[in-house]
């Protein structure tokens, strides 16, 4: 399970979230979120999954249904399938970058390039109109290849084999990660050049680790921190339920959840923070990092580091690093296929092949817009709604079901059943009160985040009759695309305005596509329900 949890989120998403949410401002909410949301949710999901598995359910709609009497809960379970498909759609794109960069490392595409040229190489790669290898549509080709490989492995039932291979790949990734982390710690200002005179790895580390306590009052930072915890631990997604539905009644789920969670945190906090940000800041400067923070940051910087080691070692390091990242990614993306497959096999009697290929086709339809419209913000849109907001929504629902509807006493018994590990009793009130309250605060706070995160001023404004000033980062303003509309209104020239208007159009189209997928799965759940009633299974 640690193989599934350790993925691209640790090395590629965590640094980006940290940079986009104020560096040191992010770390405190992040760690608090791990302790009061991450750990309890890991236990909740493992317990719910094992309970559901005993009832013959292997995906969230009917796992939730088996724990709660009200019929509507199964529709919350739709999040546990939809999120996996929507995340897999763009996650496979990142995975395909690692695949492509293995290819480019072997063929020495980065040979002799400067820092800026290595960074520009990635921009050209994701810009579909240009090509870095002479192969037209290189990025979509690697994406389709990557998705085909995932689907084929799922259809042949080889995920177990990949997990076993990951048992070798994962320690190798960690060892190589430690080596790179040492480089990140010792790079200092030695990477500065006349082109980037202010480059300093120390500045990157200082930005990331300098605690800023004022962030504690900003719910957007909390939402991002909670979203990262969910994404990296794969909680709030439905993947763990599906995995746990197959474990035995006497297995120690409490210990397994803890081991997977803490190992994941080690890789993310210790290694993830010491590689991409300090190395990028050490070669390109902190300002560049702040302006270019995105999933592509590691692809824009690591090849340059490797190129400094000479041709042979550069190729080896590139293959090793990107190849191992690919391994980390594919163990996670394969897990994302299992909730859909479990649902279709349980409810509609699909064969493994049919379930896997249907997953591949839906993911391809949802994923191609993220590839072709990457520069129009579609990728980021998927990550916001499927990779952040929906995880929190589902987590709120499952924590309420587990602690309040199914009942904390029965839930605690399920968690501790078969546990060699003594689960600390203080986590019982945390699971019952703190986790759902915290999740609700984070979610509601993000829906109505006040302007600049300033709650005092917003309350004053409300009581003086001037209304609640919303921030553009709030979910309400995000839905209304307020920030983008302001940019359009302020555009200095027609070309910029036209580009932003295209962006607005594609972002709305992407939302409609995601919504259509959600509604489609809801209809399938409703059909499955009628089928169950007809067959006398309910």
């Amino acid at each position: 399970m640690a193989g599934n949890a350790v993925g691209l989120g640790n090395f590629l998403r965590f640094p980006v979230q940290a940079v986009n949410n104020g560096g040191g401002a992010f770390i405190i909410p992040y760690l608090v979120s791990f302790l009061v949301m991450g750990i309890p949710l890991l236990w909740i999901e493992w317990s719910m999954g094992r309970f559901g598995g005993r009832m013959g359910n292997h995906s969230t709609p009917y796992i939730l249904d088996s724990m709660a009497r009200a019929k509507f809960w199964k529709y919350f379970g739709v999040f546990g399938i939809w999120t996996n498909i929507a995340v897999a759609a763009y996650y496979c794109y990142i995975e395909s970058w690692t695949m492509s960069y293995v290819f480019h490392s072997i063929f020495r595409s980065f040979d002799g390039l400067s820092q800026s040229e290595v960074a520009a190489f990635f921009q050209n790669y994701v810009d579909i109109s240009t090509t870095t290898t002479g192969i037209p549509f290189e990025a979509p080709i690697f994406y389709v290849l990557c998705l085909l490989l995932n689907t084929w492995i799922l259809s042949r039932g080889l995920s177990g084999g990949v997990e076993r291979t990951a048992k070798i790949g994962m320690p190798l990734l960690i060892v190589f990660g430690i080596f790179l982390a040492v480089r990140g710690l010792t790079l200092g200002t030695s990477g500065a050049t006349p082109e980037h005179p202010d480059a300093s790895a120390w500045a990157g580390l200082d930005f990331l680790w300098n605690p800023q306590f004022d962030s504690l009052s900003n719910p957007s930072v909390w939402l991002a921190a909670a979203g990262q915890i969910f994404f990296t631990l794969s909680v709030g997604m439905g993947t763990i339920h599906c995995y746990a539905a197959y474990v035995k009644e006497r297995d120690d789920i409490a210990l397994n959840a803890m081991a997977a969670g803490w190992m994941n945190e080690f890789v993310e906090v210790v290694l993830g923070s010491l590689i991409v940000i300090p190395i990028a800041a050490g070669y390109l400067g902190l300002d560049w990092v702040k302006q270019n923070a995105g999933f592509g940051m590691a692809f824009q910087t690591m090849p340059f580091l490797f190129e400094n080691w000479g041709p042979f070692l550069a190729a080896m390091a590139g293959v090793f690093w990107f190849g191992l990242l690919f391994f980390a990614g594919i163990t996670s993306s394969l897990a994302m296929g299992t909730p859909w497959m479990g649902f279709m096999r349980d409810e509609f009697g699909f064969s493994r092949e049919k379930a896997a290929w249907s997953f591949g086709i839906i993911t391809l339809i949802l994923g191609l817009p993220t590839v072709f419209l990457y520069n129009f913000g579609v990728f980021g849109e998927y990550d916001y709604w499927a990779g952040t907001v929906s995880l929190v929504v589902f987590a709120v629902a499952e924590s309420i079901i587990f602690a309040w509807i199914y009942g904390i006493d029965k839930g605690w018994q399920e968690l501790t059943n078969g546990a060699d590990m003594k689960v600390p009793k203080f986590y019982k009130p945390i699971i019952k009160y703190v986790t759902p309250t915290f999740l609700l605060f984070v979610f509601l706070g993000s829906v109505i985040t006040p302007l600049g995160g300033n709650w005092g001023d917003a309350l004053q404004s409300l009581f003086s009759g001037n209304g609640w000033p919303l921030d553009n980062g709030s979910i309400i303003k995000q839905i209304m695309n307020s920030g983008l509309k302001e940019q359009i209104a302020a555009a200095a020239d027609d070309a910029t305005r036209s580009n932003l208007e295209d962006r607005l159009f594609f972002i709305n189209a992407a939302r409609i596509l995601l919504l259509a997928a959600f509604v489609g799965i809801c209809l399938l759940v409703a059909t499955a329900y009628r089928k169950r009633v007809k067959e006398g299974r309910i």
Partner: protein
Amino acid sequence: MSTGAILTMVITMVIVTGFAGFFFLRVLKPPKRTE
């Protein structure tokens, strides 16, 4: 790097590494069941 940043980094990493190591060892070598 500021002192605050160094302290936060070191303390966080020591705690995270400690817990990860502890649970990893527990999974590798679980205590014998008494039943």
